[in-house]
């Protein structure tokens, strides 16, 4: 079982920070406009503190729980803090594999791999926060495995 690169926590914490700032701003403006007896600054700070704390805890737990495994015939993924999800994707079902890198991920030298299937529910499976080399490597491996596992008879047609 492989774990994500620890730097991914920075990406998640950054998102939490942005989210907390937006909510704090909204709370500050809202409390000012509605006159609820709390100063805008106090409301903003309180909301920021609570959201940041919850978000940071969530991000850390998320990192601790995230696992994936490139197995012989399947890709196995385990994640989720509140709802624990364990996904098994047979390579033969993989339609295409993306590798994506956002601005912050590029600064940190990270990348993520997105695996698409024809299914309706778990149609795209993302592995976030891989080091750049690992992401490229994983994409290549998954692509190769998907092609390799394709049966010649055409029976394996996904849909």
């Amino acid at each position, binding site marked *: 079982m492989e774990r994500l690169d620890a730097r991914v926590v920075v990406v998640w914490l950054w998102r939490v920070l942005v989210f907390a700032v937006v909510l704090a701003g909204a709370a500050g403006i809202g409390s000012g406009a509605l006159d609820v007896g709390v100063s805008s600054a106090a409301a903003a700070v309180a909301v920021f503190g609570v959201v940041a704390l919850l978000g940071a805890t969530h991000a850390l737990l998320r990192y601790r729980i995230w696992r994936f495994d490139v197995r012989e*015939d*399947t890709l196995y993924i385990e994640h*989720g803090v*509140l*709802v*624990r*999800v*364990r*996904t*098994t*994707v*047979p*390579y*033969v*079902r993989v339609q295409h594999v993306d590798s994506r890198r956002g601005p912050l991920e590029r600064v940190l030298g990270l990348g993520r791999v997105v695996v698409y*299937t*024809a*299914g*309706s*529910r*778990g149609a795209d*499976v993302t592995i976030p926060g891989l080091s750049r080399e690992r992401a490229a490597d994983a994409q290549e491996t998954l692509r190769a495995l998907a092609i390799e*596992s394709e*049966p*010649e*008879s*055409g*029976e*394996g*047609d*996904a*849909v």
Partner: protein
Amino acid sequence: MKLHPLSVPVRALSRALGFGWAFLIGGAALSGGNAALTGVAVLGVMVAVVAVVAYEIAYYRRFDYELTEDSLDIASGVFSRREREIPLRRVQNVDVTRSLVARLLGLAVVDVETAGGGSTEASLRFVSREAAADLQADVRTRRTTPGDAADAATAATPDAGDADSESRSAADRAREPTPVGERGELLFALSNRDLLLYGLLSFNPRLFSGIIAVATVAAPSLGGRMAVPDVGMVVLVAGAVALALGVWLVSAAVRVVQFYGFRLRRVGGDLRYERGLFERRDGTIPLSKLQTVSVEDSVLMRRYGFASLAVETAGYAPGQSPSGGSEAAVPIAPRAAVFELAREIEPVADIDLSRPPERAQDRYVRRYALAGLGVVAAGALVSRLVVSFPWYALAVLVPLAVPAARRAHATRGVYSDSDHVVTQAGWWRRKTTVVPAHRVQTVLRKQTVFQRRWALTSVVIDTAGSRSLSGGGAVAIDRDGGDADALADDVVDCTLLSVGVRGDDTAAAGSAAD
């Protein structure tokens, strides 16, 4: 090939009706009786109508379709052109719809669905009835089904000539002027009595929401007129009952009209259905593209020994499936017949469902009891704040949690063998879904924080079917943790085996390792 020439007036008329009314009503409202302005509005309508007719003529002239040996090519578009090529191998459904007007004129709409994209991939509005039937038959015979492909692969050299001549003759047979309904093996025909029963037993909630929308607008004005509170209450209750009855009858009538003359046939490797009183729908579903088969029965239907059957492909986008639910569905039939039919379509062995562990039932009791207490609390609030009524009477709901939980437990289950996974769920409308192992896309095990307390896990079997997104997919709810793991591993193994990724020996080694 061109569309039918009559498609120009029909399309123009249907479009002009929409436009024209908007212009006319808008114009009349704006002009406010001023003769000059009304004249301008009328002129506007005429210009719009001319524009629509011109557009439709251009559309007709610029629309071209052709069925080649292995694809359906369509070139269309007046201003921006689009040339589309649909490989016949990828076609999921071919639907022919004939509205009342189209039937009178001998026209039909052909819709071709593939698994990709959000909307219908090809829509021919309108072609002649014969051309539609030919197209449907030709797509069927020219498409190489995966079964044929597998045969061809084992034979190493695909014996194209033979298969071709065979399909040709089939196509020729199909073109013979036999009545459209006479071809193929009849699997099921809906009798009028069953149809009526279906209408009465099914309830379309969408109609109800419409009535509620009307009622919320109408109620305040009605309430104002009813000064005497007691009489007002009685009238309101009577009105509500009458309304509910009316909705029920209307929804029954809608169902009857939709499914009148339902027939399911098997033509070669396709399922073919026909239905409708005014608007006839006629669609094909290749069995080779079938994703799941499910048998549904509501409490009422089960009471009278009936069930319905739904067949799912990846063709329709989620929520896009034409009204009336899954298309190649047998709306209602005796249970035994439905199961027989399901077996014929997807040969599954005897289904021996295993239920969730006993502790799951305790969980349901608590959950439903909490919901009951919630209702009581809400009642108390309403009683205090809005209208005073004996809210404590709602407390009788709480003990109902026990039978409800028993029922929930008894309707959830899963069964799997080497070729299929069967899941069952649904409190009121029980749904038994059969997923062929070779259709499984991914397997997910989900555990919420609440389930974790009870060491229960739900296993989601994802397929490319179109209904899975709306929660209709195959889910084995609340399995014991270890069972869930075993089930997930089994299903993945069977899937790999059935698509030929893994040989029998490795599978045996895998099960030995378990």
